């Protein structure tokens, strides 16, 4: 069936995909934050993008590691050069990453800040002002090396459940291996959080993602773990049944298959168009693309098709460094608007490991349409050799062309604006629910691609300590409109809608799409 799907798509898209053009606007855009620090900051370096000013343009929050973090207001003209204004709104030290999330569902985005030390929940006050809300919301920020995050609204809850992944016990100096500290599950108790539930065993998580892997209507928690530090560890997935204690998927009971990688980031997308999410897992050297072998079996048994698909991204493709790569933030997105998902991967040495590439360019692998990808990072202009960590592929100036912001270790973050000619159609949507879970985390957007339906889970989490809430971008290729519908959290199926290309739409349950115009 999978092969048939690809054959059906192959006809219009199998030629060399259009190479997008990105212009490096780091020097002029005003993003100056550097992710600083030594051993305790070898992982982390996240970026969060979200609109806190109400103009629709995403602001940018950059972690600074040992240096202060910073929130930048987006002053870019629509379709114009990128411009940001640095604020002192969220100046925190020891920040590894952040995710935007409207925790209290007041319609103003809040910010989850992962730190070396106490994690912070920052309540959005509007106009990009924030206040610390740990105490008010009963949130125990702990004292750990927090390096992963995911959130979901469990059934029947008006507040989210937060999963926080933790790394090594930083007090272990001579023998840190095997010292992974517990991950935490912060479940709500009314309009506050209860005491964190340890997700034992924990294996040094560097990425977490709530995902409805089997379309059961009840998401599970995937955790990607760094094998460098765990003992008896592996990749994990947790059952999260409402009202029940979290429970690990096991080989014996669930058919979970052991995989041990230097797990650093998770990106999910329905790459093979079989209706189930596939997972790209970043690591050192080879990376993985997992597709469900047999959905009917009910078992989370995945095949790795990264090699076959041409996206192992295991070594530098340009620059002459012959050593294996180190991959961090992965993200699927249709950067060239041809209607086929592409994949960006941020790359960079852990520090100065001579067995791995020092000159390790970021990847931009373009989907061809037959299930394979071609590397285009250098031709697109984003093959930076800086030591990258977190990133976001996001439309920063609302022109329908996705842009890119990347956090680097020891050097300034970089930002690229996509400046080439538009070669395909696009549309962007934003989900809006009344009352709880305003941004519909856990929803699924379905879009028809010829004879098949491509499904997109709307998640908070994954990547490498980087996340976004805002406009959801879809490339359309030559299509002049998109057939789309929303499966809202809880399972309510929205009606199929025909949305013209080139526009922004706000989608609400049971209502017609509302067109929105930037500027």
């Amino acid at each position: 069936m999978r092969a048939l799907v690809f054959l059906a798509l192959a006809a219009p898209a199998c030629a060399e995909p259009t190479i997008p053009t990105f212009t490096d606007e780091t020097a002029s855009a005003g993003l100056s934050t550097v992710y600083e620090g030594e051993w305790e900051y070898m992982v982390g370096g996240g970026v969060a993008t979200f609109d806190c000013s109400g103009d629709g343009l995403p602001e940018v929050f950059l972690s600074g590691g040992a240096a202060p973090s910073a929130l930048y207001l987006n002053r870019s003209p629509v379709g114009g050069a990128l411009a940001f204004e640095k604020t002192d709104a969220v100046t925190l030290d020891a920040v590894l990453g952040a995710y935007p999330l409207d925790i209290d569902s007041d319609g103003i985005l809040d910010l989850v800040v992962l730190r070396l030390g106490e994690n912070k929940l920052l309540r959005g006050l509007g106009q990009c002002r924030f206040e610390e809300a740990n105490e008010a919301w009963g949130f125990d920020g702990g004292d750990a090396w927090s390096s992963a995050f995911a959130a979901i609204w469990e059934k029947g809850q008006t507040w989210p459940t937060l999963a926080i992944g933790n790394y090594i016990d930083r007090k272990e100096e001579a023998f840190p291996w095997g010292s992974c500290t517990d991950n935490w599950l912060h479940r709500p108790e009314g309009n506050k959080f209860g005491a964190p539930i340890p997700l034992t065993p924990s294996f040094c998580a560097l990425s977490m993602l709530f995902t409805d892997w089997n379309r059961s209507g009840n998401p599970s928690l995937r955790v990607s773990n760094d094998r460098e530090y765990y003992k008896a560890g592996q990749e994990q997935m947790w059952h999260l049944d409402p009202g029940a204690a979290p429970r690990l998927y096991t080989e014996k009971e669930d058919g979970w298959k052991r995989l041990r990688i230097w797990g650093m980031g998770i990106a999910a997308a329905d790459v093979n168009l079989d209706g189930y999410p596939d997972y790209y897992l970043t690591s050192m050297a080879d990376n993985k693309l997992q597709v469900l072998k047999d959905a009917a079996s009910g078992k989370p048994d995945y095949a790795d098709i990264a090699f076959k698909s041409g996206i192992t991204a295991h070594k530098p493709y340009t620059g002459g460094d012959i050593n294996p790569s180190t991959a961090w933030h992965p993200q699927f997105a249709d950067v060239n608007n041809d209607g086929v998902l592409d994949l960006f991967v941020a790359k960079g040495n852990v520090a100065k490991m001579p067995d791995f590439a020092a000159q390790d360019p970021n990847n931009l692998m373009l989907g061809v349409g037959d299930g394979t990808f071609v590397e285009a990072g250098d031709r697109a202009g984003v093959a930076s050799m800086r030591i990258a960590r977190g990133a976001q592929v996001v439309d920063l100036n609302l022109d329908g062309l996705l842009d890119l912001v990347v956090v680097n270790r020891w050097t300034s973050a970089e930002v690229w604006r996509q400046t080439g000619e538009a070669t395909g159609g696009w549309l962007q949507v934003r989900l809006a629910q009344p009352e709880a879970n305003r941004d519909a985390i856990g929803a699924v957007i379905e879009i028809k691609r010829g004879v098949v339906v491509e499904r997109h889970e709307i998640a908070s989490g994954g990547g490498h300590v980087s996340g976004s809430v805002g406009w959801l971008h879809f490339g359309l290729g030559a299509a002049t409109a998109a057939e789309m519908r929303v499966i809202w959290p809880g399972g309510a199926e929205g009606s199929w809608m025909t949305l013209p290309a080139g526009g922004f739409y706000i989608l609400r349950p049971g209502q017609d799409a509302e067109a929105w115009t930037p500027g």
Partner: protein
Amino acid sequence: MQFRRRQVLGFTLAAPVALAFRPGFAAPRADVSREVLLTWHKLILELVRHTATYMPPVAARGFGYIGVTAHEALATGKPALRSLAGQLTDLTPLPARGEGEFDEPCVLHAALETAVKELFANTGPTGQRAMQKMSEMMGKTASKDIASDVVERSVAHGRAVAEHILAWARVDGGAVVENMGFPRDYTPGTRPQDWVPTSLVRMQQAPLLPDWGKNRPFVMPDTASLDAPPPPDYDEALDSAFYGFAKEVYDTGKSLTDEQKLIARFWSDDAMLTPTPAGHWISIVMQIADRDALPVEMISSTLAKLGCAQSDAFVSCWSTKFKYNLLRPVTYIKKHIDKAWEPLLITPPFPEYTSGHSCQSGAASTVLTSMFGEDFAFDDATHEDEGLPVRSFPSFTAAAEEAAMSRLYGGIHYRFGNEQGLTQGRAIGALAAQLRTEA
């Protein structure tokens, strides 16, 4: 196969062997030396696991040089010990101690620190941090209450010993490992029995370390003289012997008991997830040293002989592997028996014949039997922190035989690859066992 725990018997047999060494310096300083040796090795086992280039043959080489370094550091100050210079290939006499008093723990610590820092120079930031911390900790432990001039003199000598060993090591052919040991250019064989990649990992489309068999050995006069005989003639006929060997792997894999699965995983000793097969045997020695309170000279002598034997076993085995270039069971079985079959263990990315783990286990068990005797029982908790239970063995020979059989259970080797590997390794172990570490 289930073994009973026989710790008491092991201790009883070990004690006379240990006493024969009669440490020559005051017991407290000997205890400090012992602590220095074992603590550094505890870190080394972690560094092997966490240094990307430390594939099993590379790890064995590292253990060889570190073992020789520790023994030589002690031997330069103790007439009862005999240097391995002149016994190991191309090893010239070590720097002699000058005038004045030397402190053994300080000499030993400085030698190990110097050797480890170079051999693991490529480890990651956490390994670098741990090495630095270990240097500080063991430096303080070794030099506590020792006169500064003695410390200074001892450290300088320890470093000189290590530098001598490292200079010898740099030219053995195995000092530089690139791309985690996988060649960037590789021309596959064209015969039906030739090895083909079995992995979906892009880097592993070429075999690991194809030239490792050309490295200078420690104790073997040459690599060819200890080569294994050719494997059974390749054949795809259903009534052929070769088909029968493959069918045995297939049938075994289809009917594995829980105990067989446990054995396969216990000896899997995967690179970058464990201290590798060689480190597993080093770990066994460390556990016995701890259990039986072996003196430092006994431990260092054992580690030196064991390290040399295991390193040579990998050199010899790799020479054999790339001479015959035999395909793995998974390749044959999928093509001729069952295209859906999967082995229990991940098939290693290099030719099958002979089994590397079997070869080095044969070498290790022969050395250890020569040191500790036949029927020396021991418990092995190497993988306890990985969630695998302690296993008990009545002898080193039994442990090696189980290690070899584990590769059949794991579905990654034919029986003949395991058996010939054991034989090949035992011959190498016998050479290492003849090394004289006492005057």
